[in-house]
C-alpha cells in the first residue's frame, strides 16, 4: 500500500508543501513518487509566447520542478516527471486512474467558497473522481 505515489503539482509553494508530505509517506513505505504537471491552454499560450522554441519551453518547465525533484532525490526516493496537456483536473484524474497509483498527493490553495466558484478547485475534482486514496495538503 502507498508504494506508488503520484504528486500533482504546479510548482507553487502549496505543491512544495505537498511534496514534503509525499516524501514522508514514501520513506516509511519505501515507495516511489511520480510528479505530474498539467499544461493547460493558457499556460501553453504564455509559455510559447515567452519561450524561444519548444526545447527552451520544455527546459523552463522542467526548471520549475527542480526544487521538488531534488528534494525527493535527496530523500533517496526514485522519481519521474510527467507533463500532461489539457484541463488540470480531468487530466490528473485520468492519468492517476490509468496508471493505477496507490495514492495521489495534491496541494490545496485553501480557497474560500467564492474563490472556488470563480477559480475552480483542482484538488476538489481530484478528490471526487480519483479511484485511489487522495491526500490533500493544506
Amino acid at each position, binding site marked *: 500500500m502507498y508504494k506508488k505515489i503520484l504528486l500533482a503539482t504546479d510548482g507553487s509553494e502549496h505543491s512544495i508543501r505537498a511534496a514534503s508530505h509525499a516524501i514522508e509517506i514514501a520513506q516509511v513505505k519505501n515507495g516511489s513518487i511520480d510528479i505530474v504537471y498539467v*499544461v493547460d*491552454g*493558457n499556460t*501553453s*499560450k*504564455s*509559455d*510559447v*509566447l*515567452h*519561450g*524561444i*522554441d*519548444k526545447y527552451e*519551453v520544455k527546459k523552463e518547465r522542467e526548471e520549475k520542478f527542480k526544487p521538488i525533484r531534488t528534494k525527493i532525490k535527496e530523500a533517496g526516493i526514485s522519481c519521474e516527471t510527467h507533463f500532461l*496537456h*489539457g*484541463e488540470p483536473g480531468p487530466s490528473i484524474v485520468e492519468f492517476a486512474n490509468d496508471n493505477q497509483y496507490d495514492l495521489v498527493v495534491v496541494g490545496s490553495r485553501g480557497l474560500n467558497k467564492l474563490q472556488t*466558484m*470563480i477559480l*475552480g478547485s483542482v484538488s476538489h475534482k481530484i478528490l471526487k473522481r480519483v479511484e485511489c486514496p487522495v491526500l490533500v495538503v493544506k
Partner: protein
Amino acid sequence: MNIAKKIKYEWFGNVRGDVLAGIVVALALIPEAIAFSIIAGVDPMVGLYASFCIAVVIAFIGGRPGMISGATGAMALLMITLVADHGLEYLLAATILTGIIQVLFGVFKLASIIKFVPRSVMVGFVNALAIMIFTSQLQHFEGESWIMYSMVALTLAIIYIFPRITKAIPSTLVAIVVVTVIAVFAGLGIRTVGDLGNISSQLPIFMIPNIPLSFETLAIIFPYSLALAIVGLLESLLTANIVDDMTDTESNKNKESRGQGIANIVTGFFGGMAGCAMIGQSVINVKSGGNGRLSSLVAGVFLMFLIIALGGIVVQIPMAALAGVMIMVAISTFDWSSLRNIHKIPRTDAIVMIATVITVVVTHDLSKGVLLGVLLSAIFFAAKISKVKVTHISSVDNSKKIYKVHGQIFFASVNDLVEKFNFNEPIKQVEIDLTNAHLWDDSAIGALDKIEMKFEQNHVKVKYIGLNAESRLLKRKIGGLSKASGH
C-alpha cells in the same frame, strides 16, 4: 499508403471531438467575425465570408490540423485606412495580394523568419493587439446611455461567470443570446449590428475585385498587403506553436504559410477580408476536444449555415453585446504575465516590448511595431556583444608587449578595439592574442590592419597568435586588402 493513412488520421482520427469542437468554435466565431468587420469598416458579411472561406480552405491545405483560422483583429486593424480611403474592392484586391505574398513565403521556406522576431517583440505584438482591440471599441460607447453600459457589463459578467456552470456551451454565445433577448423584448432601443451593416442570407459568390488593373492600384495596395502578410504569418505561426504545445504534436510551418496564402487568395475572390490563425479560437477548439482537420471544416460550414438560417436574428444583436465580447477578447489576448514580470526581465527586453506597444498604438500599424521592435532588439544585441575587453602584459625587458583580446570583433565593436591599444610606447614587438576573440567581418579585418599599420609607423612589429580557424580563413581572404588600398 502511408500518406493515405496520415490523411485518414488527420481527417477522421477524432470525428466526435472534431465535430463537437467545430460547432462550439462556429458559435464563438460569429460575434468575433462581425465585430472585426465593424473594426475594419466593412459590412459584417465581409468578415463572415472570410471566416467561412478561410476555415474551410485551411481545413484542407493548412499545415497545423486543429488550428482555427478566420477574420482576425490583428488583420482588421491593418485595413482601416485602406477601406476608409479606397473602399471594399481595394480591400479584396489587397487580400488576394496578401495571399500571393504568403504563398511565396511558404514556397521559399521563409516561415523560419519567425525566429528572427525576438520574444519581447512577440509579447509587445500581442499586448499592442489587445490594446488596439480594446480602444477600437471605445467609439461604441460615445454618447451612449447607462442602458448600453449596463448591457456591456451584463455581457462581461455572463462571459466570465457562466463557465462555472458549464463549459459545454461557449459563454460568449450565452451572453449574446441573453443580451439580445433582453434588448428585443424590453425594447431598449439600443444600437444593433443592423444599424452598422447588412447581413444577407447568401452564400459567398466568386467575383473578381472591381478595380483598375494598373500600377497605381498596386502602389496603393502593396504596402497594406505586405503588412497583412507579415502580421498574418506572425500570428499564424505563433498560434501553430501554441497548438503544437497544447496537443504535444508537430506541424509543418511552411505548409501552413502556403495554406494561409491560398486561403487568403480564395477569400479575396469570394468577397472576404484577409485573415489568419486565431489564438483564442484555436485554444477553444483544442480545449473542446478538437485536434483534426475536420474541426476547422465543421466550424466554417456550421458558421455559414447559422448565418443563412439565422441572418434575421443576427442583425438584432446589440452592439453592447459585441463590445463586451471584444473587451473579453482584448483581456484574454493581453499577456498579463509580462506586466507582472516586467521588473524581472532584462531592461533592454522591457524597452523593446514597450517600444513595440507604443509604436503600434501611435501608428495603428502592427507591422511597424514589429519592425521597430526587431530593429531595436538587433541594436541592443549588437551593443551588448560589441563590448570587447583587452588586457596587456609587458615582457621583462619592456621590449615586447602582449595584448589579449576578449570578445566579438565586428563592425560595431571595432572602434572600441582600436582605442584600447597604446601605439606610442617605445617597444619593439607586439603580440596580439586572439584566442578568446572571433573575427566576424570586413570591419574586423580592417581594424586589425589599422592596428598593425599604426604600430608599424612606430616601427613596432606585430604578431598574431591564437586565431581560430574561421577567423584565420576570413583574415586570409580579405586581410591586407584595406591596407594595400591605402588606408
